[in-house]
């Protein structure tokens, strides 16, 4: 039955020539596992599009609802944390795969004539993907999102002459707010996807016009010529399957983070960007004052200038890596630079004690209620009631909350008054108590 239906459709649409065109493209030198990165990236893009569409079902792009709607997806919708996890980890995986893809193309000299245009379109795709990362980061509207975007936009502000105008355009006004969120949402979910789809189409169109590059060794390339289907498609499918399993395991076990709701009045928050911007973030630290624009403007401009010029630099026809020492050394140095910066950034951020803003609020409540009139913390306060210096080691959340509400129920005879606070305030005060631990100091 299925066979007859597919035969019927195939006949009506005259499919065999189309399939022949799609699948029998010749690969010089034969199929190889080294060619999978581009197709895995494409697969990841499709997965991002799919999970993104489903996230939009419950997401609300306004500051008064964005955070709650993401929390709702994360905590109350069945599989919500999983779908968001796939989208979150998929973005990172995409960056890794694009990196490997570019590396492979660079190493193989596959960007050389007649594939210069493909390389440049690829460069635009890289910029678009980074823009996806930047616009997507704001959408959960949590503290991380808000402050990291604040920093990102301020960097744009250092561009000479037009910086001020650019930041206003990015934010949709004088400050980061409702208009920023809605335009980031529109760009992330409507503008960029179409641009990327068109660029991918162009990238693949050029590939099909000029053909795959194949191995750098001419003899090897000419010795074998194998059609795209079945072996290369098989390898691509296996790679996609493995990628998918990795993402499923990650999404199911390591949920995407969601910090506290964005609070524009809290300036103590130290924003850290997503890891693929981290090396650049680290690099920025070495340029201060007048020199800041070197890092924020001059070098990025130079970088992308060189990136797009790569196909036109050096000995144009040589593809064998050992015969392109300059390219290999410069490329290698660039990698060393990126990973050194990344390493330094990771080391530094790991040493930042992540301050939970709820703890600060709890501390303020502790002061407001004049708890120190009876209790002592680290030598401060009266000694009427129990010393609370290491309360976090002694009690758990349930005990503390029950105790605040009704102290006598847990310690009969205690003259501690019950604490009248809203649930959120109670939560903050409890978090503060729990943070009072021996090893925390």
């Amino acid at each position, binding site marked *: 039955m299925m066979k007859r239906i597919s035969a019927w459709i195939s006949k009506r649409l005259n499919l065999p020539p189309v399939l022949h065109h799609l699948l029998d493209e010749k690969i010089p030198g034969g199929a190889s596992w080294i060619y999978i990165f581009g197709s895995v990236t494409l697969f990841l893009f499709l997965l991002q599009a799919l999970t993104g569409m489903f996230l939009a079902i419950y997401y609300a792009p306004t500051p008064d609802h964005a955070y709650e709607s993401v929390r709702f997806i994360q905590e109350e919708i069945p599989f919500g944390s999983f*779908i968001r996890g796939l989208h979150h980890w998929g973005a990172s995986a995409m960056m890794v795969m694009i990196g490997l893809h570019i590396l492979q193309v660079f190493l193989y000299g596959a960007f050389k004539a007649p594939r210069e245009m493909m390389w440049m379109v690829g460069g635009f795709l890289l910029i678009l993907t980074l823009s996806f990362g930047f616009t997507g980061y704001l959408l959960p509207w949590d503290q991380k999102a808000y402050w990291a975007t604040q920093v990102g936009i301020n960097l744009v502000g250092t561009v000479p002459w037009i910086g001020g105008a650019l930041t206003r355009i990015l934010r949709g006004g004088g400050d980061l707010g409702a208009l920023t969120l809605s335009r980031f949402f529109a760009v992330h979910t409507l503008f960029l996807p179409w641009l990327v789809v068109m660029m991918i189409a162009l990238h693949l169109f050029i590939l099909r016009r000029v053909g795959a590059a194949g191995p750098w060794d001419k003899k090897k390339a000419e010795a074998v010529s194998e059609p795209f289907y079945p072996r290369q498609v098989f390898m691509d499918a296996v790679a996609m399957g493995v990628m998918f399993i990795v993402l499923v395991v990650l999404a199911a076990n390591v949920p995407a983070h969601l910090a506290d709701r964005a609070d524009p009045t809290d300036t103590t928050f130290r924003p850290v960007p997503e890891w693929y911007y981290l090396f650049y973030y680290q690099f920025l630290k070495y340029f201060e004052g007048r020199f800041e624009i070197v890092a924020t403007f001059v070098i990025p401009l130079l970088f992308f200038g060189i990136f797009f010029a790569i196909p036109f630099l050096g000995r144009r026809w040589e593809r064998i890596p050992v015969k392109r020492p300059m390219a290999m050394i410069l490329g290698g140095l660039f990698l060393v630079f990126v990973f050194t910066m990344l390493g330094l950034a990771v080391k530094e951020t790991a040493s930042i004690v992540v301050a939970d803003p709820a703890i600060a609020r709890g501390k303020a409540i502790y002061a407001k209620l004049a708890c120190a009139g009876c209790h002592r913390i680290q030598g401060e306060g009266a000694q009427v009631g129990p010393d609370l210096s290491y309360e976090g080691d002694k009690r758990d959340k349930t005990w503390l909350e029950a105790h605040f509400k009704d102290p006598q129920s847990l310690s009969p005879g205690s003259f501690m008054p019950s604490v009248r606070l809203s649930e959120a305030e109670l939560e903050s005060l409890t978090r503060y108590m729990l943070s009072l631990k021996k090893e925390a100091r």
Partner: protein
Amino acid sequence: MPEEVTRRSFFGKAIAAIAGSIALILSVPILGYTILPALRKREEPWSEVGPVTQLEMNQPKELEVVRSVSSGWMKAASVRSIWAFRKPEGEVVVYSPICTHLGCGYHWDDQKKKFLCPCHNSSFDLNGQVLGGPAPRPLDALPAKVEGDRLYVVYKEFKSGISRKEEI
């Protein structure tokens, strides 16, 4: 040649199997994510009405309930009224304020000791039973409980005009 054919078909099958498993594994969470929340029944919370001491014996009083209604991640307060009184045995009786006939608001007539609905003249006794008029069923009682000195109810609405008590 026959060997070539089996090799080719092996690759074809393996590719289809990988693509198929990815689609299958994805479809389960995606369907659950999209469909399950839509099927979820709304759970009405217990809303606090106020001190139970304000209720008199066999003397229905109209009270306001502020209940928090949630839609997805949004929560909003909505104010509704209820009729409540205490029975001699101490039990608290709470009625939905909506007439079972066509949904008008009725009131307690203290002279006649009846609930009267002005729209089409339905009347009910203290137990909610129909005394006269077109009402098809007794007044709709709401779940109520007393904790400490506080009265709590679950506010619900029922279809009017039918003899069965059916929740909306």
